[in-house]
Structure formats: structure tokens, C-alpha cells
């Protein structure tokens, strides 16, 4: 294994783990602030570390500290099986985390002629891995509900478990339709397939090529991750907290984090299969590598504009209210963050300038293209997570029989029909 291969795999692993784990506080923050803004109120925005609020992200870290330090107790009836009670949320959490690890965040980087995968787990059977490992998460829910020794937890876990199992069918069938279209089970190859065009002007994203399949995939993934409107398991007004009722402190934190990691993985899979993954629309990796100078100049123009808009937005919004006297800590934070962003912009501009004017910087160009693709991936991931959160705060929860009806009566036949039509078209075109 060459040095480049080792470095790339270590960096991919670190980036993947950070993306999955650091996204949890960010998602919790997005959920709470987003929920507040949708409902015409501000979310949590007071916790700060030496005056730095970062819009309220620090609140998520304060939540984690609280959950770690809470009192741990167990229901009295399961005195001998405490270890299984502790293990059940870990199963769900690790299944969700492992399922995220096969999503590519950039194209294969070519260093000295060898092509290295930019996935945390560089395997070429990504789709199968996601479906298999994602199916393990259900076990943790059943175990958790049963071991709580509580009628309502049992109800919640049975509902959640059978819902997740019912929606694995349309999920699998729509994924098979996608596999037929892209002719591969490798996520990376799927993304590079989507860099063409359809009808000459539309990007060949999954949304355009397989609209019905994309719809079924999105709905089935909403159900798989127990997210509104399919949140029958945590029906907050009906069965307290469902299977999570008897869980305290760290065990609850694992379920809670597991749900957000699963949502993140679902978003990642959706953008990889349906929205073109880490790519800019219409631009494939070869185009990027060949004409990197033009892209570098375009980025050099776009970044200062974005930073300027962000600084102006921060100055306007990162204060209590214009008519009120406050202690100036928020203005101080806005100033520090503005200078930090300007500093980063200067550094990035310098690097891009050097790259675009140096004659033969193959390695530098490759790394810059990879970084650009990672940035595009993260932006798309955040946008899709925001979509998940927005749908949660728009739709009321489905009743359980409606959930099962949609899964079995409507989605399953639709996905079969989709598979049929896709197969006919794929065989007919080739």
C-alpha cells in the first residue's frame, strides 16, 4: 500500500466519521432552530461559550453534557438483563453509523496513476451494504421495547418495528430499479453515471431518469428512519415516548443520536442516488479536472460574494434587536466571525490563484477538485436534512393503519410497476 493510499483511506475515514458524528449536534440545532423559525419564534439561542453562541449550536453540546451526567436507572424487573438493555440502543446506533460509511463524498482521486476511493469504507458493493446494515437497526428497537417491561413501550416498538419491516420492501424494490438504471451496485459509479444529460439540457439525475422510483425511495426512507409523518413509534402524544420511555441518560442519548445518524444516512443515500451525489450539475469529474482554471476563477468570484452576504446577514441578525441596549457580546461575536471568514477567504483565494496559474500542478488540481466535490456533497446533505426537518414540521403524523395501507397497498404495487417499466426500458434501449 503506497503512502497516498494509506493517507487517502485515513482521511476518508476521519472525514466520514466526523461527518456522521459531528452532524448530530448540527442536526439537533437545525431541528430546534428550524422548528422555531417555522413556527414564528426563535429557537434556543442563549447558551454560549465565552460569548460565542454560533447561532445556538452550543445548545446541542450542552444537551449532550446533560445527557451524559444524568442519573442512570433501570426498570426493576430486568435486574439480570441490564446488559441487554444497555446494548439495544447501541445496536441501532452502530447500525445507522455503519450504514453511512459507504457513501462516497468525492470521485476516485487519481494520484500517481492509482485510483483511490473517497469513501470511509472503500468497498464496491455500497448499495447492498446499506440495505443489509440498515436492516439491523430494527433489532435494537424490538429489544428495547421488550426489555422496558412496559405496555406502551412494547406497543411503540411493535409499531415501529413492523413499520420499518413493511417499508423495507418498497425500499428494496425501488433500489433495484435504480440499480437496473445505473447498471451497478457501486455508489460511486452511480454518481458518475448521473453526470450526463437527458434530452440535451436536463442533468441526468435520478430525479429526472426515475421520477417514480425517486418518490418511492424518499417516502420509504422517511418511514425507515421513523421520521414524521411516519413517526408512529415516538407518537409523542399517544404513547409517551414509545420504546424510548424507560431509557435515561446515555442509553436515550444513543437512541436519539441513532435517529439523527439514520436521518443523515438516508439523506446521503437519497442525494447519491437521486440528486447527483457530490457533483455539480452538468459537470463531470473529467470536465472539472481538465478545465479547472475556469472553475477556479468562477469560485474565486463567488466566494467573496457569498462571504459578503453572510457577513451582512450576520450583522443584521446576530443581535438582540436594534431598539434594545445589550451588552455587546453578540456584536463582538459577529465581528470575530466576520474576520475569521475573511481570513479563510483570503487563504482560499491565494491557493486557488496559485493553482490556476501554476502550469502543471496535477496533484494540487486533483486535491482541489476533491475538496470542491466534498463541499458540494456537504451542502447538498445539509439541504436535504433541512428538507427532512421541514417535512417534519409541516405534516401531521399518519395513523398506524394509514401507514401500513400506504406501505402495502400503494407503494408496493407502485414499486413493482416501476421495476417492470424500468426493466422494459433498459432492455429496450440496449
Amino acid at each position: 500500500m503506497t503512502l497516498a493510499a494509506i493517507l487517502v483511506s485515513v482521511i476518508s475515514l476521519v472525514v466520514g466519521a466526523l461527518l456522521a458524528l459531528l452532524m448530530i449536534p448540527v442536526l439537533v440545532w437545525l431541528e430546534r432552530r428550524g422548528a422555531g423559525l417555522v413556527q414564528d419564534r426563535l429557537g434556543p439561542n442563549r447558551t454560549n461559550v465565552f460569548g460565542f453562541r454560533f447561532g445556538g449550536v452550543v445548545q446541542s453540546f450542552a444537551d449532550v453534557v446533560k445527557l451524559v451526567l444524568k442519573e442512570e436507572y433501570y426498570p426493576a424487573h430486568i435486574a439480570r438483563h441490564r446488559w441487554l438493555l444497555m446494548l439495544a440502543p447501541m445496536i441501532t446506533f452502530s447500525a445507522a453509523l455503519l450504514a453511512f460509511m459507504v457513501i462516497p463524498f468525492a470521485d476516485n482521486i487519481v494520484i500517481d496513476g492509482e485510483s483511490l476511493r473517497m469513501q470511509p469504507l472503500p468497498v464496491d458493493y455500497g448499495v447492498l451494504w446499506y440495505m443489509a446494515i440498515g436492516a439491523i437497526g430494527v433489532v435494537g428497537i424490538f429489544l428495547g421495547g421488550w426489555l422496558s417491561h412496559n405496555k406502551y413501550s412494547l406497543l411503540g416498538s411493535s409499531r415501529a418495528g413492523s413499520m420499518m419491516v413493511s417499508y423495507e420492501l418498497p425500499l428494496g424494490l425501488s433500489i433495484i430499479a435504480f440499480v437496473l438504471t445505473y447498471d451497478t451496485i457501486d455508489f460511486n459509479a452511480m454518481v458518475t453515471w448521473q453526470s450526463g444529460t437527458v434530452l440535451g439540457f436536463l442533468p441526468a439525475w435520478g430525479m429526472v431518469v426515475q421520477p417514480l422510483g425517486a418518490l418511492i425511495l424518499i417516502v420509504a426512507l422517511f418511514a425507515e428512519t421513523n421520521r414524521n409523518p411516519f413517526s408512529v413509534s415516538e407518537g409523542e402524544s399517544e404513547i409517551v415516548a414509545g420504546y424510548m420511555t424507560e431509557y435515561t441518560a446515555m442509553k436515550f442519548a444513543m437512541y436519539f443520536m441513532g435517529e439523527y445518524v439514520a436521518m443523515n444516512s438516508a439523506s446521503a443515500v437519497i442525494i447519491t442516488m437521486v440528486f447527483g451525489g457530490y457533483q455539480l450539475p452538468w459537470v463531470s469529474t473529467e470536465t472539472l479536472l481538465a478545465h479547472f482554471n475556469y472553475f477556479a476563477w468562477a469560485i474565486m468570484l463567488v466566494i467573496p460574494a457569498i462571504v459578503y452576504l453572510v457577513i451582512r446577514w450576520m450583522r443584521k441578525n446576530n443581535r438582540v434587536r436594534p431598539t434594545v441596549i445589550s451588552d455587546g457580546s453578540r456584536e463582538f461575536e459577529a465581528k470575530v466571525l466576520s474576520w475569521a471568514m475573511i481570513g479563510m477567504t483570503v487563504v482560499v483565494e491565494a491557493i486557488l490563484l496559485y493553482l490556476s496559474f501554476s502550469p502543471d500542478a496535477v496533484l494540487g488540481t486533483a486535491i482541489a477538485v476533491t475538496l470542491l466535490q466534498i463541499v458540494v456533497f456537504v451542502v447538498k446533505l445539509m439541504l436535504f436534512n433541512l428538507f427532512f426537518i421541514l417535512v417534519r414540521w409541516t405534516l401531521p403524523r399518519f395513523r398506524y393503519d394509514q401507514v401500513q395501507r400506504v406501505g402495502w397497498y400503494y407503494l408496493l404495487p407502485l414499486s413493482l410497476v416501476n421495476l417492470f417499466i424500468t426493466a422494459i426500458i433498459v432492455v429496450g434501449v440496449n
Partner: protein
Amino acid sequence: MDNKVKVVPRYGSSFKDRLYLPAIYQGMKITFKHLVGNAADSNAVDTLEYPEEQPTDITDRYRGLHRLTHRQDDTIACVACFMCATACPADCIFIEATEREDGEDEKMPKRFAIDTLECVFCGYCVEACPCDAIRMDTGIFSLTGNSREDFVLEKDQLLAHKGAFGEEKSRARK
């Protein structure tokens, strides 16, 4: 006797309703508008940013913290008749009477304590008092302390609270 039967129209059976996607799209338009609008200008959101902004709806009828009033000659107006202690539904007023010094009435309170942790701020004591001696018009809505004993307000503290809406002295006697 003819039965009046009213037929209620049932919604939700047209194809567009059962598809549910157009409804989702319309709902998300509204939530998206709220999200982006509020994020772009978070000063317009109606949340009260306490403590930089104080509440603006404290009127003279607002039942804030209690105060004992003075008469025109700055003596205490309360005659320790125990009407407020009897009327209190939470039993949180503790009075001990003693002789009044200035000779106009017979009694005055030696100890007048209100346990604000028990108080439900109902205002019955204000209604019961025949001498306009206790009022709840201080406009103070937030009381903090470090121990339970800090929340038992004694006579001196209650006499020191100032009314917030103009009338300082008791209206009962000259």
C-alpha cells in the same frame, strides 16, 4: 315529526386529495416561506428577548409582588385585622399584632410575612383588606433568591416595595 337530516360534505376522496402530494407541496410552501422569511430577518420575530427586553403588558391591574402601603403621614396602613390572612387560599400570610403607637387605631402588625413560594398571586388579600393596606401593584414579576428563606418577605421588605402606577399612599384614611 319530521327528522331534519343534514348531510355533511365529506372531503378527501378526490384523486388529488388521496394522492396527498399536492397538499404536501402547498404545506411546504407555507413552512418554507416562514422559515426563510424569519431567518432572513430575525428581528421581526415576535419572541421577547428577555432580559434585554422587558414585558410591555404590565398594567395597573397586573398582580405583581405585594406591598404594604403607608398612610398620608407615612405610618403603616395595616391594622392587623387578619382579614387577608383569613382570605388567603394558600395560607401564606403570617401576622402578629401589637399595639399601635400613634393612637389613631388600636392595632398594627408586629410581624407581617408573606411566603411568596406558597403564594398563588390570586389577589384575594387585596380584595379582602378594608384599609387598602396591601396592594399587588408593584409590577415586579420576577423574584429570585438563593435559599427558601429569601422568599419569605417580611414587613420591612413589603413596606419598602414601591407601587409602579402612581398611587403611593393608602386611600383609606387621610
